[in-house]
Each structure stands twice: as C-alpha cells, then as structure tokens.
C-alpha cells in the first residue's frame, strides 16, 4: 500500500488544492509546498525501509484490474527505481519553490498540474504491468502539455504541440508492440498478459524481437531524447516555465532512459545485442552533437537544453554497453543529470526573473552583482562538467568504463567527447559569471533571495553528497542491475 500511497497522494492533494479558494495565491502555494514535503517525507521513509542489497522487487502490490485482458494493477520498486522515485520527490518541492514569484496567474491550476505530473511520473517508475506503465506514461503528457502551453513563453503553443505529438507518435507504436506481446503471451501461456515478468520469460523469434524492440526503442528514444529525435526538446525547454524545465529535464527525460533499462533491453535481449552498435553510434552522435549545439547557441536556456541532449546521450551509452559499470553509470547519470541540469535551469530562471532576457550576449560579470549565486553556480557547473568531488564525475567514469569494456575505440571516442562538455560549461560559466558587466541589463541583477538560496543550496548539497558517497545509489542498485544483466546473459547469445 505504501507505493500506491506514495504515487497517488500528490494527485489527491492536488484535487484538494483545486477545491481551495483562490485568494492571493499564497495559501495555494503553501498548501502545495506542504503536500510535496509530506510526499518527500514518505519517499524518505520508503528509502529507509528499502533493503538495498536485494535484487528483486520490494513492496509489491498486485490487484486484478481487467482480468479478461490479463491487465493488473501491479506496482513494485527495486534498486533501479528507488532513487528515481526519490529524485521525483525532491524535484517537485523545488519546482514549486522556484515558481513562487514567477507564476502569478492561474496559480491553482499550476500547482494542481505539478502535483498531477508527480503522480504520473511515480506511476511510470513503479508500474510492473505494461498497460499500467503505458497509462501513466501517457498521463504524464497531459500536465506537461498544459504547463508549457499555458505558462510558457511566446512560442509556447508550437513548442507544446510539438512535444506532445512527438511523444504520442513514439508511444502509440509502443502500444502496438505491447499488444503484440500480449498476444504472444496468449499463444505461449494461454492467457493474455501485460506483466513485465511474463514478457521477459517469453521466447521470441529474432525477427519478432527486432520489430518489437524498434517500436519500444522509438518511444523511449523520443523521450530521452536521442539524436535525431531530439528536436522537440530545445523548443519545449525554451518555452517552458522554469518549473516545467526543471521537471522536464529532471524527471521526464528519465522516463525514456528508465524505459530502455526496464523494458526495451530486458524484454528483447537478442535485439538489444543486435542493435547495440547502431544505438551506441546514435548515442555518441547525441553526445557530440548536443555539445556542439551548446557552443553555438545565443540563448542561455537553449544552451542548457542542449546540454541535456549531450548528457542523456552519455546515459544511453551506458545502458547499451550492456554491462554492470555501464548500466550503473547510466542509472547514476539519470539521477545526477536530474540534479545538475535541474539546478542549471533554476539558475536560468533566477536570471530571467530579474532581467527578462536570455540573450547570452547581454550576460557577463554576474558574479559582481550576485556573489552568493557565484558561490553556488560553480559547483553546479563543475558537476555538469564531471569534475571529481561532484556527482557528475562518478557517473561519467562508470559509463566510460562500461563503454571501454564494450569496445576500447568507442570508449576512447566517448572520452574525447566528454572534453567537449567541459569546454562548453567553462565557456558558459566564464561568459555569464565573470568578466566585466556586459550590459546595462546586468546592472539590474540583485543577489539571491533566501528562498532561492534554499532551493539552489539543496541541489548543491546533493551534488556534493552524491559526489562523495556515490555508494548510496550504487550499492542499492548493484544487485538489481546485475540481475537484469544476468537475464541478458542467460537468454542472449554468449559473448556479452
């Protein structure tokens, strides 16, 4: 029951907030903040009860839902998903806090949608039934559609439609593949099934695996996003309100990489091996292309958006190296990227609230006006670069180890690509923070307010905690990741 409670409580609180009187919005903000903190406490409680070393699912809940189609309400958490749940719990209060002054219209609806999004994301991370997974997957679109479309920038309608249509296109193909799997399950076990564990145990022909894998992969690759399906991302990020960007980068992109790790690879191990090379190539292109795009942007937010393309490419590299360090690194990348890119979007939002421009040429010397931000900016930038001591270092190291084990040349190439990351982050930091004041706009900057120090400070603390103690995540995920890979070894061809 604890998982259901964790997943559904934000939505229930959200409905309560809808019922509240509008007022000046302050009550609504405090109420939703309180709701998100209660949820965070629940997630923390779950974390303390979670047994880290185990491989299997914990706190499982199974209830019949649509028996004639073999659909169950089936939730569970393991070492792969537990920290993603916590990430979702952490980022939601931060999203609420960072909109404190930025969102002044339709405050009630805004907070309802943020909380609804939290429920949908929890659902995706917790579902062990394909159908349920799909429902939550699609449900996560609805709040984001409105968050970008209603509270977004000038081109918000274009951006939000593009975002929804891209994702919908990919996920409907996945739905067809899920139906096909249910039919195959019926052939082999005499009963329709959408259960992940049944799907993993099916014996699929090489041909079927390839087709179905491609359908799943497309859905997840759009979400990750992987080159060349990434074009919705810069638009959505630039137009989204700060809270939308934080959640989009922080948790929504992870739905894609989580899907690859939980569904695409384990259900279709042969196809995963078969497509390993092309996917690695796409991921490498994402890393390099994303980094190259960062360098040529003139819009601060677009820069940060493209860093996501690059970092999520690293994550896919890790997943498809199909070995323990690679996948653990990928998992860590998901969490670290959520924190560091979330923090970067917070900073962009802090700037934008003050000077209402994102034009990079107007930025420069911000540290002169905002010393506290200067203090907090540096760790975030270092984390994004992957400097030792910050969380970004560990995951890049692990992914590189995984990629080297897959193929030394690819590994060497990937390592070179990571230098690009350092290059663009250094350039960004130097341009925005240091040097003389670049324009009269910079004169208007004022230093961080206490609320901003708290949100950004919390992120920086997480950056260092995970940088120094990556074992927190790694120890509790090792068994689960290993179990997935052992399955791969057992059913896939030898030589992995």
């Amino acid at each position: 029951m604890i998982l259901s409670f964790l997943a559904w409580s934000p939505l229930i609180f959200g409905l309560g907030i809808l019922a509240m009187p509008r007022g000046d919005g302050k009550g609504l903000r405090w109420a939703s903040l309180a709701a998100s903190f209660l949820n965070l406490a629940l997630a923390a409680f779950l974390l303390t009860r979670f047994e880290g070393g185990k491989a299997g699912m914990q706190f499982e809940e199974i209830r019949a839902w649509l028996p004639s189609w073999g659909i169950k309400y089936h939730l569970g958490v393991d070492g792969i998903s537990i920290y993603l749940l916590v990430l979702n719990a952490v980022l939601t209060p931060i999203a609420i806090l960072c909109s404190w002054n930025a969102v002044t219209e339709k405050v009630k609806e805004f907070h309802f949608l943020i909380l609804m999004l939290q429920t949908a994301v929890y659902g995706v991370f917790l579902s062990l039934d394909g159908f349920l997974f799909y429902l939550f997957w699609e449900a996560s679109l609805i709040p984001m559609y409105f968050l970008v479309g209603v509270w977004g920038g000038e081109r918000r309608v274009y951006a939000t439609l593009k975002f929804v249509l891209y994702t919908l296109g990919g996920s409907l193909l996945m739905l067809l593949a899920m139906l096909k799997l249910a039919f195959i399950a019926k052939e082999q076990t005499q009963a329709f099934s959408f259960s992940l564990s049944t799907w993993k145990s099916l014996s699929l022909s090489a041909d079927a695996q390839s087709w179905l894998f491609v359908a799943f992969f497309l859905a997840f690759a759009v979400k990750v996003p992987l080159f060349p399906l990434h074009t919705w991302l810069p638009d959505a990020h630039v137009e989204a309100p700060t809270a939308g960007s934080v959640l989009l980068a922080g948790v929504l992109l992870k739905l894609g990489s989580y899907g690859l790790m939980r569904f695409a690879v384990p259900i279709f191990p042969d196809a995963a091996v078969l497509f390993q090379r092309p996917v690695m190539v796409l991921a490498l292109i994402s890393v390099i292309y994303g980094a190259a795009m960062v360098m040529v942007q003139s819009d601060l937010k677009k820069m940060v958006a493209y860093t996501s393309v690059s970092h999520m490419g690293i994550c896919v590299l890790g997943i498809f190296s199909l070995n323990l360090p690679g996948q653990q690194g990928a998992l860590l990348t998901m969490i670290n990227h959520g924190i560091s890119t979330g923090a970067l979007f917070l900073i962009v939002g802090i700037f934008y609230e003050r000077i209402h421009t994102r034009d990079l040429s107007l930025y420069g010397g911000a540290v002169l006006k905002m010393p506290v931000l200067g203090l907090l900016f540096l760790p975030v930038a270092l984390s994004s670069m992957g400097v030792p001591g910050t969380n970004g270092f560990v995951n890049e190291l692990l992914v590189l180890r995984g990629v080297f084990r897959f193929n030394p040349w690819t590994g060497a190439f990937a390592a070179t690509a990571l230098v690009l990351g350092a290059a663009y982050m250094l350039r960004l930091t130097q341009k925005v923070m240091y040097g003389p004041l670049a324009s009269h706009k910079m004169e208007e900057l004022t230093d961080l307010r206490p609320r901003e120090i708290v949100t950004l400070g919390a992120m920086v603390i997480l950056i260092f905690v995970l940088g120094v103690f990556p074992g927190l995540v790694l120890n509790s995920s090792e068994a689960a990741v290993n179990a997935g890979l052992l399955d791969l070894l057992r059913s896939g061809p030898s030589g992995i």
Partner: protein
Amino acid sequence: MLNNPIVTLASLQNLWPEITVLLGAFFVLAVDIPLRADKEKGVVAWSSMLALGLALALLLRDWNSALSPAFPGMLLGGRLAQAARLVLLVIGALTIALSRRPATRLGLVHAEYYALLLFAIAAMMVFVASANLIVAFVVLETFSLAMYVLAGFNRRDRANREAALKYFLIGAFAAAFFLFGIAIFYGVTGSVSLETLPELLKNLASDDPRRRMLMAALGMLLVGLGFKVGLAPFHLWAPDTYEGAPTPVTAFLSAGAKVAGFAMMAQMSLYFPFSHPAAVTMLGWLAVATMTLANLGALRQQGIKRLLAYSSVAHSGYALVALAGGAPSAPGAVLNYVLVYAVMNFAAFSLLLMLEESGSPVTFKEIQGLGFQRPFFGFCLAVTMFAMAGIPPTAGFVAKLNVFKSALEGGRSTLLVLAVLNSVISAAYYLRVLVALYMAPRTETQASPAFGGLTGAVLLACVGLILAWGLFPAPLLSLSAF
C-alpha cells in the same frame, strides 16, 4: 400455409421495442393536433421520451429470450443486434434531450420532428437485425428519408436546406448502390437472405467465379453503407450536411447512422467471407483513405462543428480498421467503438449546443480563453477532446485499443501502423481546440456557454461515462463480448 402463419404473436414479441417506438411516433402526431403550432410543446417531447423508455424496458425484459430471431430468415437474433438496438434507443433519448433547449431557436418545436426521430430509430433498430437484404433496404430507406427531412427541418434556414438537399441527393445515389449490391447477391445465391450464405460458401470451390461476384456484391453494399456512415471517398456530403443541419440533428446523424451502419457491417462480417483477399484489400484501403482524408481535412477547419464532422468521418475509419482485421473479435470491437463514439459525440455536441446558445456559429475564436473562465465547462471539453484523440484514461482510449487489438489479432500490422500515425494527426487538431480553450487570450466574441437543463444532464452523463469506462474498462468491454 395457414397452419404455419408467418406472423405469430410469439414472433412479434421480439419486436415489441420497435413497435412501441412506432406507436409512440403515432401518438406524438395525434396528440399534437389540438395543440397550437410554433409553440414549445413539452408533452410531445416527454411522450416521445416515454416511448423510448418503454421500448428500452421491453428490450431489457426480453434481453435473453430475444436472442432467437423474430422472423426466421427475415430478422437475426443474437447479442450483436441486441446491443445495437439498445445503443440506438439510448441515442434517440439523448437526441431528444438535446433538442429541448434549442427547440425554439432551431425551429424544432413541431411534433413532426419527434415523430420523424422515432420513425428513424425504429427503422434503424430493425435495420441492425435484418437478415433479409430486402428488409434491410426498406428500413434503410425509411430511416434515411426521415433523416433527410430532419437535416433540413428548420426550413427557414438556408444552410439547413442545403444540408438536406446534399444529404438527400447523395443518399439516394448510395441507396442505388445498396440495391445493386442486393441484385448481384441475389444473382449469385438465388436468395436475398444473409443466412443462406455460409451454406452456399461451403459448397463453392475456392476458385469459383461466384466468390468474386460475391465480393462485388459486398463492395456495392459497402459503398451504400459507406455513404451512410461517412467512409472516404463517399464522405464528401458530411461536412456540409453536418454543419448545416440543426445541431441536435447533426448529433443524431453522426451517432445514429454510424451505429446502424457499422452494426450492419458487423452483421455482414459474420456471413460474408471478410477474409477473402479482395475484401481484405477493399476494407483496408477504405479504412486508410477514410482516416487519412478526414484527419487531413480536419486540420484546416476553423469552425468547431465542421471539425466535428471531419472527426466523425475519421472515427468511421478507425472503426473500419477492426473490420478490416477480420478477426472473430471484430464485430464486438466495432460495436464497442461506435458505442464509445456515440458517447463522445453526444458530449461534444452538447458542449457545442451550449456554446451556440447565442445563435452564431462557433469557431476557435469564440472559445478562446474559456477554459479558465469556466473551469467545469473547460474540463468537460478537455475530457471529450482527449477521449476523441484516444488518450488515456478515457473510454476513447479503451475503445481504440480494443479496435487495435482486434486488427492485430487479424494480423494487419501495416494497417495498424497507419492507424497509429493517423491518431497522431488527429491529436493535433483535438489539441488545437484545447490550445484555444486554455492557451489563447480572450477575445471580444467569446461565447458564454449556458450550462443547464437537459443539455447539461446529457453532458454530465456522457463525460461521466467517458471517465468511468476509461478508468474501469471491464464493464464496457463485456458489453461487446459476443
């Protein structure tokens, strides 16, 4: 023959619902005589509603005993016909409920309006159970004639007249196709009863030319039905007729004709060899053309009513995808889809009626910014649009999934991929409605929807069903498990 009379009281028993509806129609006409013309007549509307209610009660009373055919060789029994009759009765009641509020504005106060509606419903109910194609043709013409008149009922309105004339001319054309199909069918089988077909097919060699002739007959019948339900390329009348007809009539045209037409096609699929390559090709192309043309057409629309017309055609395409699959589950999936479509349709049209209260046509401009100003209205419209786009957790998603499942069972993967792409296109224009509703600034021409009365009740019921079936699909799916 005297000792074996065709009509016995016992065989009539299965037809009591239809008879009740017809009696209701006559009663409505009679009760109207002493009443003053051109005035709101509650008694007429309520007595037609009562007739439908009675018919519904009778249908449910004989739910299990009516499974055997009423007149062997003439009418079919079976769950499919039962379910379709039930749905048609509900559609009739919803139409009457929607007609009450705008009756004076749209000129729907005359008793003839209700009588024609009841005639159409009774004829449709016989249609979905016809085994004999001549019977099918006669009732097809009966409900079509009623619908032509209904489409132009507000005869003072120019658009109404145009709608009716277009509908009539093309409908008459379609009837000829249907009749021609019957002629070929008779030429091949020597009978006009669908039920003789399986026996005949058993004895035909697989390369017998008569099989091909049967396909020709099927093609002609499908063209005839395709006009009624709006399959491309026979859908060209739909946008103009839907737009021009009085809005409650449009709701009835799209939902009623679709349920009747697709229930008949589903019945035919039980007898005709739909797995024949010619049939597979024909149905597949019809489905693809319908979905694609309608969805692309809808993308360019500015008027909400016209958008709904194109969307209605597109939904015919999705329903046909199941039939094109030819799996045993197809008839159930089709009926399920048109049932859910009918619910979404009535939700959409009751919303449209509320918006039209001021009398002017509704475009995207009129609904700009309404979503936040009228939260509940916006919520209902949003749910309806998400349902039409097939996004969970709505009944639209479940029904579409059911169709996809059936087509996949029939092994039509390519068709399904095309259907999925079409769903994405359709999402674009449904979401445009929401863009106007929530993401665009208010305009001066903004409509102020009047929420209330029977229209509001229809809306609540339909939106409630959409959400309830979306979250708990089991009852919906068991309705159509034949």
